[in-house]
Structures are given as C-alpha cells and as structure tokens.
C-alpha cells in the first residue's frame, strides 16, 4: 500500500498529493511517470511525476478531475493509501545525461499547458540546481487553473503566465507568447513543451520558423506502461514507437500529432464512429 501523506487542492479540480513510495522516489528522474490504481476494479492510470524526494521516500503527483478514474483519485484523502503505485516509468529527460560542463551556459525554455505545469516543475528545478537558466511559459484557461506559480518562480528566470480569458497575465495562447518572446530577440538552446496534445502540436508549428530545438512529452493511452501492450504507440520520424518505454519525450518535429490525438480518443468516440463504413486504402496516402 502507498499512503497519501499530504493532499492539497491547487485549483477547484486540481489536487496535489504526496505519496509514500520509497522505491519509486529513490529512482525517479525528471521526465518520468508513474501508474497508479485506486481499487481492484480501477484502471491503471498514468500520471507524470511532479516532484520526488528520495530521502523522505515521497513522490508528488498532481491530478485534474476529468473523468471517472481521476474522480476516484481525488476522493482519496490524507491517511488513505493507493493499493498500487508503480514507477518510475519511461525514459528520463535527455538533459540528465549531460554533465554540468555540458549544461553550462545553456538556456532552456519550458512551455507548460494546464496540468502539464506539474511535470515541467521537476525539470526546471533539476536545471536550477545545476545553475542552468530556464524561462517558463505557463498557459491555462483561466486564473483559477494556474498552478505551481510560486514554486516555478523560485526555480526559473522569467515566468510568463497566459490565460485564455485574460483573467491573469497575458491574454492569449502560449504560442502567441512564444512568438512574442522570440520576436523580441530571445535565444534558447532547447525548448520543452508539455501539455495537452493539441497544444504541443501548435507549439511545434509555432516554434518551427525559429528553428528552435523542441522536445514534447506525449501523454498517450497506456495499460501496463512497461512496453507490453502497445496502446501507446505513436509515429515518430515515420516509425512506430512505444511512448511508455521509448518516451514519453520525443523530438517534436518528428511526431505525427494528428495520429497521436486520434489515438488518444480510441475509447472516447467508439459509439459515434461505429457506423462509419467508408473504405480508404491507406496505401494511397503514402
């Protein structure tokens, strides 16, 4: 069992939990994720790791209530325990392999969308601890849904907050902010975008004209998360890759986002799509 030591609401529907999982905490690195189950009938739910503390054996996760499974997670309280909590899964962010010397003088930009702010935080924190400069753009629908603002401020250089409705910070999309920063002459060695698939797609389109190296973290469907099922397969550079064991981070310019978004909806739209009966030979698309 994996006890919840702390539960904190970050926004009306977004909750942070510190979970006691010593094995996971001691192996976790930025960029990785965990899978948890709430009960015997529950799904295996993949969640990015938001923070970890090996000494205390704690892994921090952030969940947004979007459906039945996340509702179950949010129904847990301090003192309750998850029956299953496995990880860290996936390959850590590329920069953890760089020496301090290699990282020296580099400048990063992180673009976080909504809940994607949570997994961005450990990456910025890791770089901050090694004196690497990083700017962060956080995008959210509205002021209430901006999370981790203070934590992020303490580890990044410039923090830009965007809201769709203009209720806080810059009114507009993260892509607008990105263009503004770049047009003002900013220079980055690496950009990392984590958020909804559609946001990552448009960040990729927006970043391309500036020749910005861009990494995205793909939140695909998964069952086991260890390479067994292939539900997470994505096309990257024309090849099928498993996001769970070969990702979740990939070179954004190689990712087929339209396919990835379509595959995410595999179990959402099955009823409405069921009576389609039109034949297209996929050969002809190549």
């Amino acid at each position, binding site marked *: 069992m994996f006890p919840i030591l702390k539960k904190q609401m970050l926004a009306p529907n977004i909750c942070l939990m510190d979970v006691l999982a010593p094995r*996971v905490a001691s192996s976790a690195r930025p960029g990785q994720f965990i899978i948890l189950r709430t009960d015997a009938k529950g799904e295996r739910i993949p969640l990015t790791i938001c923070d970890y503390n090996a000494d205390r054996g704690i892994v921090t996760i952030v969940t947004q209530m979007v459906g039945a499974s996340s509702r179950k997670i949010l129904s847990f309280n301090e003192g309750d325990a998850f029956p299953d909590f496995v990880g860290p899964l996936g390959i850590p962010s590329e920069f953890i392999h760089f020496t301090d010397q290699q990282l020296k003088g580099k400048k990063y930009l992180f673009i976080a969308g909504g809940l994607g702010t949570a997994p961005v935080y450990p990456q910025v924190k890791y770089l901050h601890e090694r004196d690497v400069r990083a700017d962060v753009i956080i995008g959210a629908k509205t002021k209430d849904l901006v999370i981790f603002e203070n934590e992020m401020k303490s580890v990044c250089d410039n923090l830009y907050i965007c809201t769709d409705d203009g209720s806080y910070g810059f009114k507009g999309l993260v892509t607008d902010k990105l263009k503004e920063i770049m047009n003002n002459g900013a220079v980055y060695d690496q950009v990392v975008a984590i958020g909804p698939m559609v946001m990552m797609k448009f960040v990729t389109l927006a970043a391309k004209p500036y020749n910005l190296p861009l990494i995205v973290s793909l939140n695909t469907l998964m069952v086991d998360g260890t390479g067994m099922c292939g539900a997470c397969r994505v096309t990257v550079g024309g090849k099928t890759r498993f996001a769970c064991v070969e990702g979740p981070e990939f070179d954004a310019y190689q990712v087929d986002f339209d396919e990835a978004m379509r595959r995410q909806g595999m179990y959402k739209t099955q009823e409405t799509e*069921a009576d389609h009966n039109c034949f297209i030979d996929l050969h002809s698309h190549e």
Partner: protein
Amino acid sequence: MSKIPRVAVREQDPLERAHNFDEVSFGYNREEAILEASRCLQCKNPKCVSGCPVSINIPRFIASVNADHMEEAASVIAADSSLPAVCGRVCPQEIQCEGSCILGIKYEPVAIGKLERYVADWARKNNYSTVAGAPYNGKKVAVIGSGPAGLACATDLAKAGCRVAVFEALHKPGGVLVYGIPEFRLPKDEVVAYEIDQVQKLGVTIETNVVVGRTVTIDELMDREGFDAVFVGSGAGLPRFMGIPGENLNGVVSANEFLTRSNLMSAYSPDSDTPIYVGKHVTVIGGGNVAMDAARTALRLGAGVTVVYRRTEKEMPARVEEVHHAKEEGIAFELLCNPTSVLGNEKGWVTGLRCIRMELGEPDESGRRRPVEIPGSEFDKPCDVVVIALGTVANPLIARTTPGLNINKYNGIVADENGVTSRPGVFAGGDVVSGAATVILAMGAGRKAARAILDYLKIT
C-alpha cells in the same frame, strides 16, 4: 486395459459458452478419473516422464488415482510441480507426456493432463496442502517476474531453504497466467491465485509494482539489498507488429493489449473501469494459442470473429484442442491468407483488412512449407477491430540496465540450459531466454535454474 476408450471430458455447450467467461472444461469427476487412470499401462520405462519438462512421476501419481489415494497422488505431483492445476489445464500434453504415451500408438493416450487437473483440483477443494518449507540456509535470492518460470524457480529455492523474494512489475502476480490466458481456460481467482498462494506459503514473498530495470536494478538488488543470486524470468512481453500500412489506426490492437484489458484488468466484466472495444466484427491475425485466446475472448464480448492465418490448419502453432474449441464456438478461419494493409475511414478508424491469398511452397528453415503469395488474389475483409497475435519478444529493460548481461539479436538473455548467464550470480530462464514458448517449458527452465543457483550458492 486398452479396451477401455479414453474417458471424454465434460465441457460447457459450445453455443452457451460462446457467451460467457466460465471455464470451458468441467474436468473429470472421481469416477471418471479412476476409470481413466485404470487405462495406464504402468510402463517400466515410462516415456511420458521424459516427455514432461518438469519430470513428474506420472505412472506413480496415476497409480495413486487408480487406487483412489488422492492425497498420495497430490504429493507425487507436488514433488515436481508447483502449478499442477494450471499445467493440467494449459500444457500441450499432446506433444509432451501424452504424445509419448505407449497406449497412443495403437489407441488413444492416457489423458494425463486431465488426471493432473483432477488431482490438483481435488487437493485444492479438500484443503490438502503438500507445502513443506525448509530451515533457512542463510542465502537470499531475488526472482524477477512472477510468471511460470519465476514461480517454479522460487518454489524449488524455497524448498531448499533459501529466502526468496519475487519482484513483479504488474499489480497482480502470475505473469502470463494472469494477463494472457483467459478466464475460460484458466480461472484466475479459483486456480491461479490459489496456486500462487501455495508458493507463498513456502515463505516466498512477492512484491508487486516493481519494474526491475526502472524501480530498482539488478545491481542494486545484489549490492544494496543483499541478494546472493538473481533469477530473471521476466518473460517475452513485447508484442510484435507487422509493419503494414494502417497498423496505427484506431481499432488495431496487439493481442497483448486486448488480452491484458480483458484478463488482467477484467474489462470483460461490466464493473471494471478499463474499457475494451470489439465493434461488430473482429479479425485476429495469427495462428497460435494467443490468437485463439484473443478470438475466443472477442467472441464472448459479442463480436463476430475471423482468424486470419497465412498457412494451413496443419501448420498452426496453436494446440489442436484450442482450434477445435474455437471452431465449435463459431469462429471463422480464413486460412492461406496474409494481411497486406489495414483499411480505415477518414476519421482514422478501422473498416477492414486487405489480404492476399497464399499457397504453400517449399519447406523453410522451420521445416514448414513456406507460404507464397498468389498474385492478383487480394481481397478486402470488412471488420471494426484487428487484433495482431504474431508473437512477442523479450523486454530489453533488464538487459539494458544490467552491465555484462549478454543478449541475443531478439533482445533475449543469453543463458545455457541451466540458466547460467554471462553475469556471475545472475541466472535466467523461460520466455526471456527462449522467446515465447509454453508455461511448462518456462517452469522447466525455472527448475533447472534453481538447481544451478543452489550449486552456485554451494547448497546441496
């Protein structure tokens, strides 16, 4: 003796069982078991024993059944097998013990598998436990993977007095017995959980939710956690795809995904949170046991099902019994037929499978006649879901995180027949070494490795 025909096993009616997940075979009752046991010739030089990968003393346990001494029969089997109720159900007896039975030359072989199942079920229902541990010998062994190889290895090590800790990546122990083989062939709670529980009663601990290679490495287990040896029985978990156009359309799944959703996550049950999608018609690609399991699962979930296989029924790697059951239940077979692309609509959902007819040519390196395409014979087969059951390969995670552990070109761990690898103290067996095979071959490999581990630890 041989005048008595082989006692047929009672089964659920095919039309009824096509709509439920209850076990297909009812197994023998006591009278049937004793009658079938009476057919055994009690050979002086029993061929069946050498046909058994774990060398169960088959004539002896059958003699005990014949004498209605079921406790004795259970003890004889338990000396060599920790999963008898599993093996009695899923072993390919026709090519092992029963395939070697002398009676089979002229008549039908003794139904050894059904007798094993009867004895194991009897022991479970009568709470007859043969579990006996040994005093602690001071050695700690880590077993990676709680499938058939790991459980068999752990059992023998625990019986020799080792302290054994099994690490399982998923949330439930059992490996392929839990995520792969469906409930209607192998009941999970009643049979699998019970036999794993028996292994734990020997003092073996099972820690779930540990992905070795990610959560902890083999080096950490040995250096930090004090394990004297490690057995890797992590299986062949990575599904193979065909690389044909349309394979990433919505509705194309690996058999691993399809079966994991249904079996491990109980998606067949309405109260499970995990979804599974079958649409109206499912096409399963492949001719092995996994293909049959996927097809029969899809059928039970309400779909019409066709199995597509590129050779003929004779070359199918699936057990004869499985193919027979699948046909009885109403699954269609499209043989000598190979998929060339998956067809989809403008929304990216599967609408069918484009296939080409095949004919058998000259034998290939496997000895089977090689299927060759018949030019111009392409045709489209409409369906909503395509399940790809073309085998699995080893997960490279452990090999990649264990320096000095040699692997082959399929990412399998290189080990000799005793499970000895290139790393001192690290042993391996089962599918991670052999590639996808059977439950019983994995158990046999686990037992051999246990023997080698005891030698390595100088325990006699």
